[in-house]
């Protein structure tokens, strides 16, 4: 399969450094304290935040900071082949852990001791980059819930196929067997909080691919800021300001 054609076009017609179409919406789940839908191309993810609220399991209560919990689940119809996934399988647990650790780093947990913040992420459609979409959706949902954060965390994936760094891999490119790098950054501080890669890359190429992924993260952060600003304007309008 020709992942990058001689003219420099990928399988879905994008350029190597072009991201997929992003779309985000806030306040989708009315019952939750904060929620958001995030779409990156065909990957669609819903995140809902419940909290800060009383800790359900007293033994896990922390006296000086909030407890952050996260669960990642995939819908049965999210992938091309319908797969009945058991809840709590290894991949879901690992991604739940990754999202929790990433978001915990940016939430100001010391402001809410003895409380609990639950982040639930549900994948509706999976077409590569689900980890990144989940983190972006979780950031928006936390902002919608009004939970104090140090910074916005945004995430994007990148790869290297046919000697070209590619930004924002979809499922087909991800399954090609090349390296798959996921990066999560604190947008304004420009610091990396999440970095995961599989397969192998020479060091100088790794630096290039990582720069590409970070550019993608910055572009997502720009979009997220616009969405939050629109939302705030809407809230002001409703309050009659």
């Amino acid at each position: 399969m020709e992942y990058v054609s001689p003219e420099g076009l990928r399988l879905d017609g994008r350029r190597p450094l072009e991201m997929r179409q992003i779309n985000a919406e806030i306040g989708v789940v009315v019952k939750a304290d904060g929620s958001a839908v995030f779409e990156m191309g065909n990957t669609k993810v819903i995140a809902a935040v419940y909290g800060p609220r009383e800790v359900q399991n007293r033994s896990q209560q922390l006296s000086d900071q909030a407890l952050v919990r996260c669960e990642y689940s995939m819908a049965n119809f999210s992938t091309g082949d319908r797969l009945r996934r058991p809840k709590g399988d290894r991949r879901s647990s690992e991604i739940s852990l990754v999202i929790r650790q990433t978001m915990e780093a940016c939430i100001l947990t010391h402001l809410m001791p003895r409380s609990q913040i639950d982040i639930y992420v549900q994948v509706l459609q999976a077409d590569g980059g689900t980890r990144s979409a989940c983190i972006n959706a979780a950031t928006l949902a936390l902002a919608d819930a009004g939970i104090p954060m140090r910074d916005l965390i945004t995430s994007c994936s990148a790869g290297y196929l046919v000697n070209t760094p590619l930004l924002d891999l979809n499922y087909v490119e991800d399954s090609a067997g090349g390296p798959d790098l996921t990066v999560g950054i604190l947008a304004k501080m420009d610091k990396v909080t999440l970095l995961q890669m599989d397969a192998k890359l020479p060091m100088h190429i790794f630096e290039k691919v990582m720069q590409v992924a970070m550019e993608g993260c910055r572009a997502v952060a720009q979009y997220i800021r616009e969405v939050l600003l629109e939302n705030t304007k809407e809230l002001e309008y409703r309050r009659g300001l």
Partner: protein
Amino acid sequence: MGLSLGEKNYIKGGIADDLRCDGRRRLDYRSIAIDTGVIPQANGSARVRMGSTDVIASVKAELGKPSSYRHDCGKVSIFVDCSPTAAPMFEGRGGDELSTELSVALERCLLGGKSGSGAGIDLSSLKIVEGKMCWDLYIDGLVISSDGNLLDALGIAIKAALSNTGIPKVEAMPGTSAEEEPEIDISDDEFTRLDSSKVPIIVTLTKVGRHYVVDATIEEESQMSSAVSMSVNRQGDVCGLTKRGGAGLDPSIIIDMVSVAKHLSQQLIATVDSEIYAAEARESSA
């Protein structure tokens, strides 16, 4: 659901006076919003919103073997998943009980008895090669947000998803012997629409105090003594009945609830059909 005594009395008193918390009368439905084709990689899908209740249903068709006692029919199975985004208590295995209850109730209402009689979908239309190959329909429901009346919302979503479903046209090569696997050619762009006109919809009547309400919110459901869910098709035939809740009901009350539900269902079917039609028109023009 944490409700104070004052709130509980307010809900019960309102229902007794035919004025519910959101201003509806006892037998009024919330406004229903339907979108079809929300999951592009499924054969059919729909999303239904009733107030804050938000559910998605998707239909996937896969090749399978007919069961040994029904050679000329395909198979249908329904699975419901309650996402933790709807409520924190659905985290981990917490939603399993409700998911199973909803799946079984939907299968009972929509798929008919063990012999296949009374099914909403014509299973013989799913046959490809008698005794060897058929279509297996997997209907998956996902509850994204729950504000009561999940069974009705899922019933409408499944009906909309089935009417949106396209089964690929299959050409079976003739002349294969009885032992061999038949060779088939699945078309990529020709689809037959599934006939969903006989699919029933579900009406749930929730008894609070001495009156019953339709389309209960989650606060009203917490005050219920029992509930009766009935599935009715376009012809007005009752296709399935489930009574939930601990309190006993006088048989005459159940008969009354059944007739009330039948009456409501005709109106609901008309609303749902027009909404599905509008949703499909929006999808094809988009």
